[in-house]
Protein backbone atom coordinates (compact mmCIF):
# COMPACT_ATOMS: atom_id res chain seq x y z
CA UNK A 1 0.00 0.00 0.00
CA UNK A 2 1.31 3.46 -0.93
CA UNK A 3 2.40 5.65 1.95
CA UNK A 4 3.11 9.36 1.93
CA UNK A 5 5.90 10.58 4.23
CA UNK A 6 6.59 14.29 4.69
CA UNK A 7 10.20 15.24 4.02
CA UNK A 8 10.34 17.11 7.36
CA UNK A 9 9.75 13.80 9.15
CA UNK A 10 12.85 12.40 7.47
CA UNK A 11 14.93 15.53 8.17
CA UNK A 12 13.92 15.59 11.84
CA UNK A 13 14.67 11.88 12.25
CA UNK A 14 18.10 12.34 10.65
CA UNK A 15 18.81 15.35 12.88
CA UNK A 16 18.25 13.24 15.99
CA UNK A 17 20.07 10.24 14.50
CA UNK A 18 23.31 12.19 13.89
CA UNK A 19 23.44 13.37 17.49
CA UNK A 20 22.52 10.01 19.07
CA UNK A 21 25.12 8.10 17.03
CA UNK A 22 27.89 10.53 17.98
CA UNK A 23 27.21 10.22 21.71
CA UNK A 24 26.53 6.51 22.18
CA UNK A 25 28.85 3.66 21.24
CA UNK A 26 26.85 0.66 19.92
CA UNK A 27 26.43 -2.07 22.58
CA UNK A 28 28.17 -4.76 20.49
CA UNK A 29 31.27 -2.53 20.08
CA UNK A 30 31.40 -1.70 23.78
CA UNK A 31 30.94 -5.37 24.71
CA UNK A 32 33.78 -6.42 22.39
CA UNK A 33 36.08 -3.70 23.76
CA UNK A 34 35.41 -4.82 27.32
CA UNK A 35 35.98 -8.50 26.48
CA UNK A 36 39.25 -7.83 24.65
CA UNK A 37 40.41 -5.50 27.41
CA UNK A 38 40.65 -8.53 29.73
CA UNK A 39 43.43 -10.01 27.56
CA UNK A 40 45.60 -6.88 27.62
CA UNK A 41 48.26 -5.66 30.04
CA UNK A 42 50.34 -2.48 30.59
CA UNK A 43 49.83 0.48 28.26
CA UNK A 44 47.42 -1.47 26.11
CA UNK A 45 45.16 -2.21 29.08
CA UNK A 46 45.22 1.47 30.09
CA UNK A 47 44.16 2.50 26.59
CA UNK A 48 41.24 0.04 26.64
CA UNK A 49 40.19 1.43 30.02
CA UNK A 50 40.30 4.98 28.63
CA UNK A 51 38.15 3.95 25.68
CA UNK A 52 35.51 2.36 27.93
CA UNK A 53 35.54 5.34 30.32
CA UNK A 54 35.22 7.72 27.36
CA UNK A 55 32.10 5.88 26.18
CA UNK A 56 30.53 6.30 29.62
CA UNK A 57 31.30 10.04 29.77
CA UNK A 58 30.12 10.63 26.20
CA UNK A 59 26.78 8.89 26.74
CA UNK A 60 26.06 10.44 30.15
CA UNK A 61 27.10 14.00 29.34
CA UNK A 62 26.23 14.03 25.63
CA UNK A 63 29.77 14.90 24.52
CA UNK A 64 30.82 13.44 21.14
CA UNK A 65 32.79 10.19 21.55
CA UNK A 66 35.40 11.58 19.16
CA UNK A 67 36.09 15.15 18.03
CA UNK A 68 36.02 13.81 14.48
CA UNK A 69 32.27 13.52 14.12
CA UNK A 70 32.97 12.36 10.63
CA UNK A 71 31.82 12.32 7.07
CA UNK A 72 28.09 11.64 7.28
CA UNK A 73 27.41 8.31 5.55
CA UNK A 74 23.85 7.07 5.15
CA UNK A 75 22.70 3.67 3.97
CA UNK A 76 19.01 3.96 3.07
CA UNK A 77 16.59 1.10 2.41
CA UNK A 78 13.83 2.88 0.57
CA UNK A 79 10.48 1.06 0.36
CA UNK A 80 9.17 1.14 -3.21
CA UNK A 81 5.69 2.14 -2.00
CA UNK A 82 6.89 5.31 -0.24
CA UNK A 83 6.17 8.71 -1.74
CA UNK A 84 7.91 11.70 -0.18
CA UNK A 85 5.84 14.86 0.18
CA UNK A 86 8.19 17.87 -0.03
CA UNK A 87 11.85 17.66 -1.01
CA UNK A 88 13.57 14.57 -2.40
CA UNK A 89 15.30 12.01 -0.15
CA UNK A 90 18.78 13.48 -0.72
CA UNK A 91 17.73 17.01 0.24
CA UNK A 92 15.72 15.71 3.20
CA UNK A 93 18.73 13.82 4.61
CA UNK A 94 21.16 16.69 3.98
CA UNK A 95 18.81 19.12 5.75
CA UNK A 96 18.83 16.83 8.81
CA UNK A 97 22.64 16.67 8.74
CA UNK A 98 23.00 20.43 8.42
CA UNK A 99 20.62 21.12 11.31
CA UNK A 100 22.09 18.44 13.54
CA UNK A 101 25.75 19.37 13.10
CA UNK A 102 24.90 23.02 13.80
CA UNK A 103 22.40 22.55 16.65
CA UNK A 104 24.24 19.77 18.47
CA UNK A 105 27.74 21.31 18.31
CA UNK A 106 29.17 18.49 16.20
CA UNK A 107 32.33 19.22 14.22
CA UNK A 108 31.98 20.32 10.62
CA UNK A 109 34.67 18.39 8.77
CA UNK A 110 33.75 18.75 5.10
CA UNK A 111 35.45 21.10 2.62
CA UNK A 112 33.60 22.10 -0.54
CA UNK A 113 36.50 21.52 -2.92
CA UNK A 114 39.41 19.09 -2.42
CA UNK A 115 41.98 21.66 -3.60
CA UNK A 116 40.50 24.98 -2.46
CA UNK A 117 39.48 23.36 0.89
CA UNK A 118 36.89 25.80 2.24
CA UNK A 119 34.72 24.36 5.01
CA UNK A 120 31.01 24.02 4.10
CA UNK A 121 30.20 24.88 7.76
CA UNK A 122 27.37 22.36 8.16
CA UNK A 123 29.05 19.01 7.37
CA UNK A 124 27.10 18.57 4.14
CA UNK A 125 27.03 17.08 1.62
CA UNK A 126 26.44 13.64 3.14
CA UNK A 127 27.21 10.42 1.27
CA UNK A 128 23.80 8.85 0.72
CA UNK A 129 23.55 5.30 -0.65
CA UNK A 130 20.02 4.19 -1.52
CA UNK A 131 18.71 0.68 -2.04
CA UNK A 132 15.12 0.35 -3.21
CA UNK A 133 13.38 -2.49 -1.37
CA UNK A 134 9.84 -3.88 -1.07
CA UNK A 135 7.43 -2.30 1.40
CA UNK A 136 6.43 1.18 2.51
CA UNK A 137 9.07 2.01 5.15
CA UNK A 138 12.34 3.90 5.05
CA UNK A 139 15.22 2.42 7.04
CA UNK A 140 18.18 4.74 7.55
CA UNK A 141 21.56 3.67 8.94
CA UNK A 142 24.04 6.40 9.83
CA UNK A 143 27.80 5.73 9.88
CA UNK A 144 29.82 8.84 10.76
CA UNK A 145 33.34 8.02 9.60
CA UNK A 146 36.50 9.72 10.85
CA UNK A 147 39.18 10.89 8.43
CA UNK A 148 42.12 9.15 10.11
CA UNK A 149 40.81 5.63 9.63
CA UNK A 150 39.42 6.44 6.19
CA UNK A 151 42.91 7.55 5.11
CA UNK A 152 44.27 4.14 6.10
CA UNK A 153 41.90 2.37 3.69
CA UNK A 154 42.91 1.08 0.26
CA UNK A 155 41.73 -0.56 -2.95
CA UNK A 156 43.43 -2.73 -5.58
CA UNK A 157 42.44 -4.42 -8.82
CA UNK A 158 44.07 -7.86 -8.45
CA UNK A 159 44.28 -10.45 -11.22
CA UNK A 160 42.11 -13.55 -10.79
CA UNK A 161 45.22 -15.76 -10.39
CA UNK A 162 46.06 -13.89 -7.17
CA UNK A 163 43.20 -15.81 -5.51
CA UNK A 164 42.62 -15.88 -1.77
CA UNK A 165 46.34 -15.64 -0.96
CA UNK A 166 46.61 -12.40 -2.97
CA UNK A 167 43.58 -10.97 -1.18
CA UNK A 168 44.95 -11.96 2.21
CA UNK A 169 48.36 -10.36 1.53
CA UNK A 170 46.70 -7.18 0.36
CA UNK A 171 44.51 -6.90 3.48
CA UNK A 172 47.40 -7.66 5.85
CA UNK A 173 49.70 -5.19 4.07
CA UNK A 174 47.04 -2.47 4.32
CA UNK A 175 46.72 -2.99 8.09
CA UNK A 176 50.51 -3.26 8.56
CA UNK A 177 51.21 -0.12 6.61
CA UNK A 178 48.70 2.29 8.10
CA UNK A 179 46.73 0.49 10.82
CA UNK A 180 48.68 2.07 13.69
CA UNK A 181 47.53 5.54 12.64
CA UNK A 182 43.86 4.57 12.30
CA UNK A 183 43.06 4.35 16.05
CA UNK A 184 43.24 0.60 16.67
CA UNK A 185 41.63 -1.66 17.84
CA UNK A 186 40.11 -1.62 14.36
CA UNK A 187 37.17 -3.08 12.53
CA UNK A 188 38.12 -4.17 9.02
CA UNK A 189 35.60 -4.08 6.17
CA UNK A 190 36.68 -6.06 3.09
CA UNK A 191 35.00 -5.91 -0.31
CA UNK A 192 35.82 -8.63 -2.84
CA UNK A 193 34.49 -8.68 -6.42
CA UNK A 194 32.18 -6.28 -8.19
CA UNK A 195 34.07 -3.55 -10.02
CA UNK A 196 36.24 -0.53 -9.17
CA UNK A 197 33.29 1.57 -8.03
CA UNK A 198 31.29 -1.06 -6.20
CA UNK A 199 34.10 -2.81 -4.29
CA UNK A 200 34.78 0.25 -2.13
CA UNK A 201 31.10 0.54 -1.32
CA UNK A 202 31.01 -3.15 -0.35
CA UNK A 203 33.96 -2.73 2.03
CA UNK A 204 32.24 0.24 3.67
CA UNK A 205 28.86 -1.47 3.92
CA UNK A 206 30.56 -4.44 5.62
CA UNK A 207 31.31 -2.11 8.57
CA UNK A 208 27.60 -2.03 9.39
CA UNK A 209 27.64 -5.63 10.59
CA UNK A 210 27.42 -6.25 14.33
CA UNK A 211 30.54 -7.57 16.03
CA UNK A 212 29.96 -11.26 16.77
CA UNK A 213 27.72 -11.78 13.72
CA UNK A 214 28.62 -14.59 11.29
CA UNK A 215 29.01 -14.27 7.54
CA UNK A 216 26.09 -16.20 5.98
CA UNK A 217 28.56 -17.95 3.63
CA UNK A 218 30.59 -20.55 5.63
CA UNK A 219 33.62 -20.14 3.32
CA UNK A 220 33.83 -16.40 3.98
CA UNK A 221 32.97 -16.84 7.64
CA UNK A 222 36.13 -18.97 7.94
CA UNK A 223 38.12 -16.39 5.98
CA UNK A 224 36.99 -13.61 8.34
CA UNK A 225 38.28 -15.64 11.31
CA UNK A 226 41.54 -16.39 9.49
CA UNK A 227 42.16 -12.71 8.69
CA UNK A 228 41.28 -11.59 12.22
CA UNK A 229 43.73 -14.10 13.72
CA UNK A 230 46.51 -13.00 11.33
CA UNK A 231 45.87 -9.30 11.96
CA UNK A 232 45.99 -9.84 15.71
CA UNK A 233 49.42 -11.48 15.34
CA UNK A 234 50.84 -8.22 13.91
CA UNK A 235 51.41 -6.77 17.42
CA UNK A 236 50.18 -3.34 16.33
CA UNK A 237 47.83 -3.26 19.31
CA UNK A 238 45.70 -0.48 20.76
CA UNK A 239 46.89 2.90 19.36
CA UNK A 240 49.85 1.12 17.74
CA UNK A 241 51.60 0.60 21.07
CA UNK A 242 51.71 -3.20 20.80
CA UNK A 243 49.38 -5.89 22.10
CA UNK A 244 47.26 -8.82 20.99
CA UNK A 245 44.18 -6.85 19.94
CA UNK A 246 44.81 -4.94 16.72
CA UNK A 247 41.31 -5.63 15.38
CA UNK A 248 37.97 -6.50 16.96
CA UNK A 249 36.43 -7.94 13.80
CA UNK A 250 36.83 -8.53 10.06
CA UNK A 251 33.74 -8.44 7.84
CA UNK A 252 33.77 -9.57 4.20
CA UNK A 253 31.28 -8.60 1.49
CA UNK A 254 31.42 -10.37 -1.88
CA UNK A 255 29.80 -9.82 -5.27
CA UNK A 256 30.06 -11.34 -8.77
CA UNK A 257 32.77 -9.84 -10.99
CA UNK A 258 34.25 -9.82 -14.49
CA UNK A 259 36.24 -12.85 -15.75
CA UNK A 260 39.39 -10.68 -15.96
CA UNK A 261 39.13 -9.04 -12.52
CA UNK A 262 39.52 -9.60 -8.82
CA UNK A 263 38.82 -6.22 -7.17
CA UNK A 264 39.54 -5.95 -3.44
CA UNK A 265 39.01 -3.05 -1.05
CA UNK A 266 39.82 -2.60 2.63
CA UNK A 267 37.87 0.00 4.57
CA UNK A 268 39.37 0.55 7.99
CA UNK A 269 37.18 1.64 10.90
CA UNK A 270 38.60 2.99 14.16
CA UNK A 271 37.48 1.66 17.56
CA UNK A 272 34.97 4.51 17.80
CA UNK A 273 32.67 2.58 15.48
CA UNK A 274 29.59 4.74 15.62
CA UNK A 275 26.51 3.53 13.77
CA UNK A 276 22.79 3.61 14.35
CA UNK A 277 19.70 2.57 12.42
CA UNK A 278 16.19 4.03 12.50
CA UNK A 279 13.00 3.06 10.71
CA UNK A 280 10.38 5.50 9.51
Amino acid at each position, binding site marked *: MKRIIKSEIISNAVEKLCADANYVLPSDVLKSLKENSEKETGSSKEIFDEIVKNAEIAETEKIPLCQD*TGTANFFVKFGKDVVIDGSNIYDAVNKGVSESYKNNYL*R*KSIVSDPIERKNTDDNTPANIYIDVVDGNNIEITFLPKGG*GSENASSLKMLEPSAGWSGIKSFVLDAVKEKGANACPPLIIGVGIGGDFASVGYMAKEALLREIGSQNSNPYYSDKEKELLAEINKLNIGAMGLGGSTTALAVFINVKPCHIASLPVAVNIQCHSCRRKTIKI
Partner: protein
Amino acid sequence: MNIQEIISDTVKLKAGQRILLSGTIYTARDAAHERIVKMLDECGKVPFELKNSAIYYCGPTPAKPGEIIGACGPTTSARMDVFTPKMLDEGVKILIGKGVRSKNVCDSIKKNKAVYMAATGGVAALLSKTVKSCELIAFGDLGPEAIYKLEIENMPLIVAIDSEGNDIFKKIEDEKVRG
Protein backbone atom coordinates in the same frame (compact mmCIF):
# COMPACT_ATOMS: atom_id res chain seq x y z
CA MET B 1 54.00 17.07 35.22
CA ASN B 2 54.24 20.68 34.11
CA ILE B 3 55.25 21.75 30.63
CA GLN B 4 57.72 24.28 32.06
CA GLU B 5 59.60 21.49 33.82
CA ILE B 6 59.97 19.67 30.53
CA ILE B 7 61.03 22.74 28.55
CA SER B 8 63.58 23.82 31.18
CA ASP B 9 64.95 20.27 31.11
CA THR B 10 64.45 19.73 34.83
CA VAL B 11 62.75 16.42 34.11
CA LYS B 12 64.06 13.88 31.61
CA LEU B 13 61.36 12.03 29.74
CA LYS B 14 61.91 8.55 28.34
CA ALA B 15 60.06 6.98 25.40
CA GLY B 16 57.36 4.65 26.72
CA GLN B 17 56.81 6.64 29.93
CA ARG B 18 53.19 7.51 30.77
CA ILE B 19 52.67 11.02 32.10
CA LEU B 20 49.92 13.43 33.14
CA LEU B 21 50.69 16.75 31.46
CA SER B 22 49.67 20.22 32.68
CA GLY B 23 50.29 23.70 31.23
CA THR B 24 49.67 25.77 28.11
CA ILE B 25 49.31 24.15 24.69
CA TYR B 26 48.20 25.44 21.26
CA THR B 27 45.99 23.48 18.87
CA ALA B 28 47.13 23.35 15.26
CA ARG B 29 46.35 20.78 12.60
CA ASP B 30 46.67 20.52 8.81
CA ALA B 31 45.45 23.92 7.57
CA ALA B 32 46.96 25.86 10.50
CA HIS B 33 50.36 24.25 9.89
CA GLU B 34 50.20 25.16 6.24
CA ARG B 35 49.42 28.79 7.13
CA ILE B 36 52.07 29.05 9.86
CA VAL B 37 54.79 27.73 7.58
CA LYS B 38 53.67 30.10 4.81
CA MET B 39 53.75 33.05 7.26
CA LEU B 40 57.24 32.06 8.42
CA ASP B 41 58.42 31.97 4.82
CA GLU B 42 56.79 35.28 3.93
CA CYS B 43 57.23 37.53 6.96
CA GLY B 44 58.59 35.48 9.85
CA LYS B 45 55.64 36.47 12.05
CA VAL B 46 53.14 33.91 13.37
CA PRO B 47 50.07 34.11 15.69
CA PHE B 48 51.86 32.79 18.80
CA GLU B 49 55.42 32.46 20.09
CA LEU B 50 56.73 29.17 18.71
CA LYS B 51 59.86 29.15 20.85
CA ASN B 52 59.42 26.72 23.77
CA SER B 53 55.79 26.10 22.83
CA ALA B 54 53.69 22.93 22.91
CA ILE B 55 51.50 22.08 19.91
CA TYR B 56 48.49 19.77 20.04
CA TYR B 57 47.26 18.27 16.76
CA CYS B 58 43.58 18.70 17.45
CA GLY B 59 40.43 20.10 15.88
CA PRO B 60 37.82 20.17 18.67
CA THR B 61 34.06 20.08 18.31
CA PRO B 62 32.44 23.45 19.14
CA ALA B 63 31.83 24.10 22.85
CA LYS B 64 28.22 23.89 23.97
CA PRO B 65 26.95 27.01 25.76
CA GLY B 66 28.48 27.10 29.25
CA GLU B 67 31.16 24.55 28.42
CA ILE B 68 34.91 25.29 28.06
CA ILE B 69 35.46 23.14 24.98
CA GLY B 70 33.82 20.30 23.07
CA ALA B 71 35.31 16.88 22.40
CA CYS B 72 39.04 17.33 21.82
CA GLY B 73 41.10 14.24 21.05
CA PRO B 74 44.25 14.07 18.92
CA THR B 75 44.33 13.73 15.14
CA THR B 76 46.87 11.67 13.14
CA SER B 77 50.29 13.29 13.61
CA ALA B 78 51.82 11.85 10.43
CA ARG B 79 49.98 14.37 8.26
CA MET B 80 51.96 17.12 9.99
CA ASP B 81 55.32 15.39 9.31
CA VAL B 82 55.97 17.51 6.24
CA PHE B 83 55.77 20.72 8.34
CA THR B 84 57.24 19.51 11.65
CA PRO B 85 61.04 19.85 11.14
CA LYS B 86 60.49 23.52 10.27
CA MET B 87 58.33 24.03 13.39
CA LEU B 88 60.96 22.36 15.57
CA ASP B 89 63.71 24.50 14.06
CA GLU B 90 61.61 27.52 15.09
CA GLY B 91 61.73 26.34 18.69
CA VAL B 92 58.58 24.24 19.26
CA LYS B 93 59.50 21.84 22.08
CA ILE B 94 56.49 19.58 22.63
CA LEU B 95 54.35 17.86 20.00
CA ILE B 96 51.13 16.07 20.99
CA GLY B 97 49.13 13.89 18.61
CA LYS B 98 48.53 10.26 17.79
CA GLY B 99 50.38 7.60 15.84
CA VAL B 100 53.68 7.05 14.08
CA ARG B 101 56.09 9.81 12.89
CA SER B 102 58.55 9.73 9.98
CA LYS B 103 62.29 9.17 10.44
CA ASN B 104 62.83 12.75 9.34
CA VAL B 105 60.66 14.02 12.22
CA CYS B 106 62.35 11.68 14.69
CA ASP B 107 65.79 13.00 13.64
CA SER B 108 64.58 16.59 13.94
CA ILE B 109 63.18 15.92 17.44
CA LYS B 110 66.59 14.61 18.49
CA LYS B 111 68.45 17.51 16.88
CA ASN B 112 66.21 20.10 18.57
CA LYS B 113 65.94 18.28 21.93
CA ALA B 114 62.16 18.23 21.63
CA VAL B 115 59.64 15.53 22.59
CA TYR B 116 56.63 13.89 20.91
CA MET B 117 53.79 12.62 23.07
CA ALA B 118 50.88 10.43 21.99
CA ALA B 119 47.37 10.78 23.35
CA THR B 120 44.76 8.06 22.93
CA GLY B 121 42.71 8.67 19.81
CA GLY B 122 38.94 8.42 20.00
CA VAL B 123 38.64 9.30 23.70
CA ALA B 124 37.79 12.93 23.07
CA ALA B 125 35.06 13.24 25.71
CA LEU B 126 37.46 11.98 28.37
CA LEU B 127 40.25 14.33 27.24
CA SER B 128 37.87 17.33 27.23
CA LYS B 129 37.79 17.01 31.04
CA THR B 130 41.49 17.93 31.22
CA VAL B 131 40.98 21.31 29.51
CA LYS B 132 40.56 24.15 32.01
CA SER B 133 40.42 27.08 29.58
CA CYS B 134 40.20 27.61 25.84
CA GLU B 135 40.82 30.81 23.90
CA LEU B 136 40.69 31.40 20.15
CA ILE B 137 44.07 32.79 19.08
CA ALA B 138 43.99 32.86 15.26
CA PHE B 139 42.55 31.56 12.00
CA GLY B 140 38.92 31.62 13.17
CA ASP B 141 37.85 31.30 9.55
CA LEU B 142 39.22 27.75 9.54
CA GLY B 143 36.51 26.60 11.98
CA PRO B 144 37.71 23.40 13.65
CA GLU B 145 41.20 24.01 12.27
CA ALA B 146 41.64 27.37 14.07
CA ILE B 147 44.39 27.85 16.66
CA TYR B 148 43.19 27.66 20.27
CA LYS B 149 45.26 28.28 23.37
CA LEU B 150 44.40 25.63 25.96
CA GLU B 151 45.26 25.33 29.63
CA ILE B 152 45.36 21.63 30.41
CA GLU B 153 45.56 19.77 33.69
CA ASN B 154 46.71 16.17 33.94
CA MET B 155 46.20 15.15 30.33
CA PRO B 156 47.09 11.43 30.06
CA LEU B 157 49.85 10.92 27.46
CA ILE B 158 52.61 8.52 26.58
CA VAL B 159 56.08 9.74 25.60
CA ALA B 160 56.41 8.38 22.07
CA ILE B 161 59.69 9.98 20.92
CA ASP B 162 62.05 11.40 23.54
CA SER B 163 64.74 14.07 23.15
CA GLU B 164 67.36 11.38 22.47
CA GLY B 165 65.34 10.22 19.46
CA ASN B 166 64.15 6.98 21.06
CA ASP B 167 60.88 6.06 19.32
CA ILE B 168 58.36 3.77 21.05
CA PHE B 169 56.66 2.90 17.74
CA LYS B 170 60.02 1.97 16.18
CA LYS B 171 60.81 -0.20 19.20
CA ILE B 172 57.51 -2.09 18.79
CA GLU B 173 58.18 -2.46 15.05
CA ASP B 174 61.68 -3.86 15.75
CA GLU B 175 60.27 -6.34 18.25
CA LYS B 176 57.91 -7.59 15.53
CA VAL B 177 60.78 -8.12 13.10
CA ARG B 178 62.76 -10.04 15.72
CA GLY B 179 59.61 -12.02 16.54
